[in-house]
């Protein structure tokens, strides 16, 4: 049976941008499925959303594990009979390493976290997205996909360039089913991603706003607002597109 609810899956949703996206889609009327690897945090987040009247569930699995992603996404799809939106939010820098010292394990981990995860989750979701309403996949690329990232972030940049291309490839491949695929490219967003520099060099962190046209760092809500739009019927002719959310940062000042 196909659920009458709108169903959104957000990977990596126990903190930072992912949780804000889950909250926003919940406010938009979706039943939100949060994924993460910290089960306690996941339970807390579901409680927090439930208290706001949002229907939320948590599924703990590692997005780099093909088996875990496939079985969990399939379980979710079968439970609701469809998936309307898949937000491939999980990802990360994984650490900084220069190529000369880089281990193959590190390389594979960063690629798996940012790129394999998109492939695994999207592939598993396709049969259920086909039954969704104005269904879409939303991925995260990064300015690092163009610039190849800061010091030691070369693999991160490489993986995000891959996300840029797989987004377009998914858009082409799935268009015949009416499934759209788009990406967002957040600039500097004030999240735990930057916690270390915020704590150790607060003046450097604050100065980043000087390189942003709007004169401030982005907030997780800024990203959630874009994803809410891309998931909606109002974006029904937008596919294969990447939207920059950087307050103009990508253009330089």
């Amino acid at each position: 049976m196909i659920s009458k609810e709108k169903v959104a899956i957000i990977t990596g949703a126990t903190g930072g941008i992912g949780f804000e996206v889950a909250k926003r889609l919940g406010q938009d009327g979706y039943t939100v499925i949060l994924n993460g690897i910290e089960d306690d945090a996941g339970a807390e987040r579901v409680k927090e959303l439930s208290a706001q009247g949002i229907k939320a569930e948590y599924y703990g699995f590692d997005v780099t594990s093909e088996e875990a992603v496939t079985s969990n996404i399939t379980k979710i799809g079968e439970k609701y009979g469809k998936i309307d939106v898949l937000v491939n939010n999980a990802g990360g820098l994984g650490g900084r390493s220069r190529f000369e010292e880089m281990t193959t394990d590190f390389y594979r981990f960063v690629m798996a976290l940012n790129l394999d995860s998109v492939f695994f989750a999207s592939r598993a979701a396709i049969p259920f997205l086909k039954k969704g309403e104005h269904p879409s996949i939303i991925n995260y690329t990064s300015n690092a996909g163009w610039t190849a990232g800061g010091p030691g972030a070369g693999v991160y940049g490489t993986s995000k360039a891959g996300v840029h291309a797989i987004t377009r490839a998914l858009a082409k491949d799935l268009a015949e089913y009416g499934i759209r695929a788009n990406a967002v490219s957040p600039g500097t967003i004030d999240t735990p991603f930057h916690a270390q520099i915020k704590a150790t060099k607060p003046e450097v962190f604050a100065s980043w706003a000087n390189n942003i046209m709007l004169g401030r760092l982005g907030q997780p809500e800024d990203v959630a607002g874009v994803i809410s739009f891309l998931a909606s019927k109002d974006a029904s002719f937008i596919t294969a597109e990447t939207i920059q959310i950087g307050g103009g940062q990508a253009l330089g000042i």
Partner: protein
Amino acid sequence: MSKLKGKVAIVTGGSRDIGRAISIKLAKEGAKVVVNYFNSESGAKKTVEEIKSLGQEAIAIKVDVSNLGDIANLKAKIVAAFGDKIDILVNNAGGLFARKTLEEFDEAFYNLVMDVNFKSTVFVTQAFEPLMGKGASIINLSSQAARDGGGGGSALYSSSKGAVSTFTRAMAKELGPKGIRVNALCPGLIGTKFHDDFTKDEVREKVAAGTPLRREGNANEVADLVAYLASDDASFITGNNIDINGGLAFS
């Protein structure tokens, strides 16, 4: 739906096709709308009537937005009607006029195309920017043609839209510190009178078939994107040229 409640919006060329859809959509989201037009008085009247039937305010003002004296008149009339605070400016007016190759066009045609598409965007922005502040949004209509050079005989049109895309980025930098966001959108093949007039049916069918979503877009879909960019949900988006083409650009 009231994402734009109480805001004042100007839509140049707002009487027909995409401009009309934008005017109505912004009104549906709660904005008061200035429907600028030049050729289509009946279209402007119809658009204003439709907005009023939704219980929203709108006025139609006829001026040529490629003429600086006319822009000054437009400004005076808007200030008299809605006050001196503008929240949303949609530089939509524009046109192809005719398909002419390098061998065919002359200086007068060059001036016409550049003036209506680019000069209008520049000087309407210059006129209204002083009335805009933090949270305001300027949205320019560029085109897929700015990305790919356009279809046959549209070199001047596509170049004028390329100028619009670049002007958009420059204004995002210049006006960002005031909290004004400036973005453009690049529509692909949208089913409108524009293509009824200038594009052969077989070309349209071929392009639609080659578009990943296998169809033309419609004016309402472009209007939805404009309303989104004007809203606070887009509060960190500036300097962007957003494609709306059903995936066409990469097919």
